[in-house]
């Protein structure tokens, strides 16, 4: 036996011994972990510890070393190769295996170690609107799950375009995520001639977080007591009635345009920097009505500052009993708003999956569902692929509506 062969045999045996000690432990831990979902979760948390990670790497290297020796032994016994050729072939095979395993482990580790610092959610509207409310509620739950603070940064303006442009330029490291309302990434590209971002190229979908209907509201002292009253008033004075919204191209703008279009009335739109300011304007009597997200208006409705006349869901909405569906006056009318997470293009797939999974988990808690319910929001939590397909379909729809309604900003 040559010195090389002796060394290989020795290394093969030592590595084999360590692996033999490890395997029963590995099987026992796996068997325990796979007995139930709760145990699996605790096992994964245990496996994520630095010491456990380090031992995983050591085991992988040992496996590669053991296989090198094993392959070489098989070659010596079964293949008439020269000694150095066998060594080279065995080392090459084991190196390829070790690289593959380390690659697999490191990519898991990358996602499992994220986040190591606070995560920024850019919300493209000021505080007080439904987008902001949704982001804060989910952000709070994700803070608990990640053990890192989710910071909400409000960047209002240009129908969400200001925040979107900033998010598009952010480093795709997962530490900056964009939390828009649907229209910012599905409608703005058809409305604005100049946009500081490209929704299709600059962002990748993560998950649609929540959705909910909108509500037609008027100030408490408004003479309009029903959807029909608003329509009649607009018809009596074409081009006089005004409606406020969160900005041109925003979900509340498009919802109102959809209503105006369906009612075949002529009303004047008044853009604000966000849904919150638009509602303040409405309460102050600056505008006549708004078709706003339930989440943003519910507080004002319950406190009596605003009167709800109709909801955009197909039927009456449980949270607003006694408020009829607009469809009762305008058969077939329906409009839904949604709020989700997208990430700057280039963000790793592992991080995207983690954000999606953890958001889904956050939405599954009874406490979160209850909190969303009282805001008039329903949890969604679809996959990145499903969100991407829905965004594509919605973008095509808004392209048509925007063209028909001639909504254009130069």
């Amino acid at each position, binding site marked *: 036996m040559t010195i090389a062969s002796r060394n290989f045999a020795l290394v093969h*045996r030592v590595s084999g011994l360590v692996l033999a000690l490890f395997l029963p432990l590995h099987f026992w831990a796996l068997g325990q972990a796979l007995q139930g*979902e709760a145990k699996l979760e605790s096992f994964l948390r245990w496996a994520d510890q630095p010491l456990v990670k380090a031992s995983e790497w050591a085991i992988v290297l040992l496996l590669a070393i053991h296989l090198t020796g094993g392959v070489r032994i098989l070659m010596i016994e079964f293949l008439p190769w020269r000694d150095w050729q066998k060594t080279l072939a065995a080392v090459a095979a084991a190196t390829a*295996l070790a690289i593959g395993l380390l690659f697999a482990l490191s*990519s898991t580790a990358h996602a499992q170690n994220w986040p190591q610092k606070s995560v920024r959610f850019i919300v493209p509207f000021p505080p007080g609107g439904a987008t902001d409310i949704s982001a804060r509620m989910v952000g709070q739950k994700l803070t608990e799950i990640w053990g890192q603070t989710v910071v909400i940064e409000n960047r209002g303006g240009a129908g969400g375009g200001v925040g979107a442009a900033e998010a598009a330029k952010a480093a795709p490291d997962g530490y900056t995520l964009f939390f828009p309302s649907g229209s910012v990434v599905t409608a703005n590209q058809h409305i604005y001639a100049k946009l500081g971002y490209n929704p299709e190229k600059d962002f990748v979908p993560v998950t649609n977080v929540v959705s909910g209907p909108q509500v037609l509201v008027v100030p408490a002292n408004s003479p309009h007591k029903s959807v029909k009253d608003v329509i009649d008033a607009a018809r009596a004075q074409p081009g006089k009635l005004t409606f406020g919204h969160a900005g041109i191209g925003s979900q509340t703008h498009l919802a109102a345009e959809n209503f105006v279009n369906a009612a075949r009335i002529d009303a004047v739109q008044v853009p604000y920097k966000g849904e919150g300011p638009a509602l303040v304007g409405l309460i102050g009597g600056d505008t006549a009505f708004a078709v706003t997200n339930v989440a943003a208006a519910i507080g004002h409705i319950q406190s009596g500052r605003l009167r709800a006349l109709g909801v955009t869901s197909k039927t009456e909405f449980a949270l607003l009993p006694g408020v009829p569906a607009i469809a009762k006056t305008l058969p077939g009318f329906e409009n839904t708003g949604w709020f989700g997470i997208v990430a700057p293009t280039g963000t790793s797939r592992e991080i995207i999956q983690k954000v999606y999974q953890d958001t889904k988990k956050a939405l599954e808690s009874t406490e979160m569902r209850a909190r969303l319910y009282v805001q008039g929001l329903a949890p969604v939590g679809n996959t990145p692929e499903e969100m991407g397909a829905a965004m594509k379909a919605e973008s095509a729809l808004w392209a048509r509506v925007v063209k028909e309604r001639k909504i254009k900003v130069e």
Partner: protein
Amino acid sequence: MSARAQTLLWVAQRASAALLGVCVLVHLATMIYAVRGGLTAAEILGRTSGNVAWFAFYTVFVLAIAVHVPIGLRAVLAEWAGWRGRGRDPALICLAIFLVYGGMSAVKGVFR
């Protein structure tokens, strides 16, 4: 131990090693696919659950380990620890049984 039994162990050791080589590569490819595809543990289990092919594959993997490890240890114990007595083989058979039991518990968890 008879020469015939020794030969049988030698063949079993080599055959299980060859089988393990293939199993490790398949397991590795699966791991990379799952991890790069962003699948979570729950999603992976969702795909393996009720899948007879995965059950058969990991059963073969576990059985190959249960054959390979005790035979390898047998030689090491004899040559390094000088343990050639009557207690060695029953101890190794116990180890093989434990490996089959532990391994199949994990396989069962993956399959169910």
